[in-house]
């Protein structure tokens, strides 16, 4: 068995409202998402929109808290938000062919003794550029269940634009 394996890959040949992975194997130590996305709503501006990653069929934003630092090329900012699920930025369809890039780590995702922690690096080079390093924690009550489902959506609640691509990798520890 290879140490790093692709669990799922989605090439977006058409606009797609969400990406959902179910019945994720519990046999890896860590998960990593590598993605390139653009928001797909043509009536949105070229400004920033965010990627949300929900787990275990809990798509309620109050179950998540995030912290991040980001820079826009002229301004740097840090902030933390309760009830927030955002792991970086992209633009919207009027800004194509720009696409945002994301690498998101979910370590020890199958450990039933831990809440789920996310860390993400993201960049976008479009009309409203951005670079961000983001943390997140899933804290629905004391839910420490292994991650077995993931849902990726644009926080703008519109589609992912065709042309995006995402792979979920599993990393073994033996």
């Amino acid at each position, binding site marked *: 068995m*290879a*140490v*790093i394996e692709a669990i799922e890959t989605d090439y977006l040949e058409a606009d797609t409202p969400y990406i959902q992975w179910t019945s994720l194997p519990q046999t890896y*130590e*860590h998960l990593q998402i590598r993605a390139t996305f653009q928001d797909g709503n043509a009536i949105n501006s070229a400004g920033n929109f965010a990627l949300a990653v929900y787990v275990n069929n809990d798509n309620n934003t109050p179950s998540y*808290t995030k*912290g*991040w*630092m980001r*820079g826009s090329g002229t301004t*740097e*900012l*840090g*902030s*933390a*938000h*309760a009830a927030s699920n955002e792991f970086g930025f992209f633009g919207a369809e009027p800004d194509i062919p720009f696409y945002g890039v994301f690498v998101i*780590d979910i*370590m*020890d995702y199958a*450990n039933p*003794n*831990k*809440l789920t*922690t*996310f*860390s993400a*690096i993201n960049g976008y080079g479009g009309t409203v550029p951005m670079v961000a*390093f*983001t*943390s*997140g*924690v899933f*804290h629905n009550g*004391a839910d*420490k269940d292994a991650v077995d489902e993931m849902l990726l959506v644009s926080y703008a609640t519109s589609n992912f634009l065709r042309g995006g691509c995402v792979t979920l990798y599993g*990393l*073994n*520890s*033996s």
Partner: protein
Amino acid sequence: MAVYNVIDHQELTGTAASWVEDSISQAYDHLLILASVRSNRAAVYDSLKIGFNDADTAGDYGHTSLRAGSATPTSGRNTAQAPTYIGDMNGANNLADSFSNVKIWVPHYTNTANFKQAISQLVHVDTSVVTNEWGVELDAILFKGDGGSSTAAITEVSLHTGTGLFVEYSTFTLYGISD
């Protein structure tokens, strides 16, 4: 040879002040450490530190950081710590059962011509949004060798707490990356 190779993996069954991997194979090109850690320090955070080759003298290391735990990101540099600080991890007063994610790349660790550089990503999570009860930090790590002027290959790596101990269920995975 596979590109990713597991050199070591440990999950703590009790507390520990450090994780150490000795006699690291020189057969790979790069090292990658992925860790999920929490300290029992009675505070909202504890320091996380990294060491190489058992070097323990101020001047052997340096780090340059970019971090945020409030609205204002800050950058700093320190060359007086051994092992050297790479950020704050979750402490005992953070959200119960929450752990920090740590990723550290150590490229070209076998070369004997250069000082070693590594880069780390660390997140400190909580449901609180109060200043420094959360944090994100990137660090450029400099290792000038044991004695402060050695370009010897890296054969040992270690992670350390500040004042507390790593708690049970903390995990450490060291990968060797081949070309």
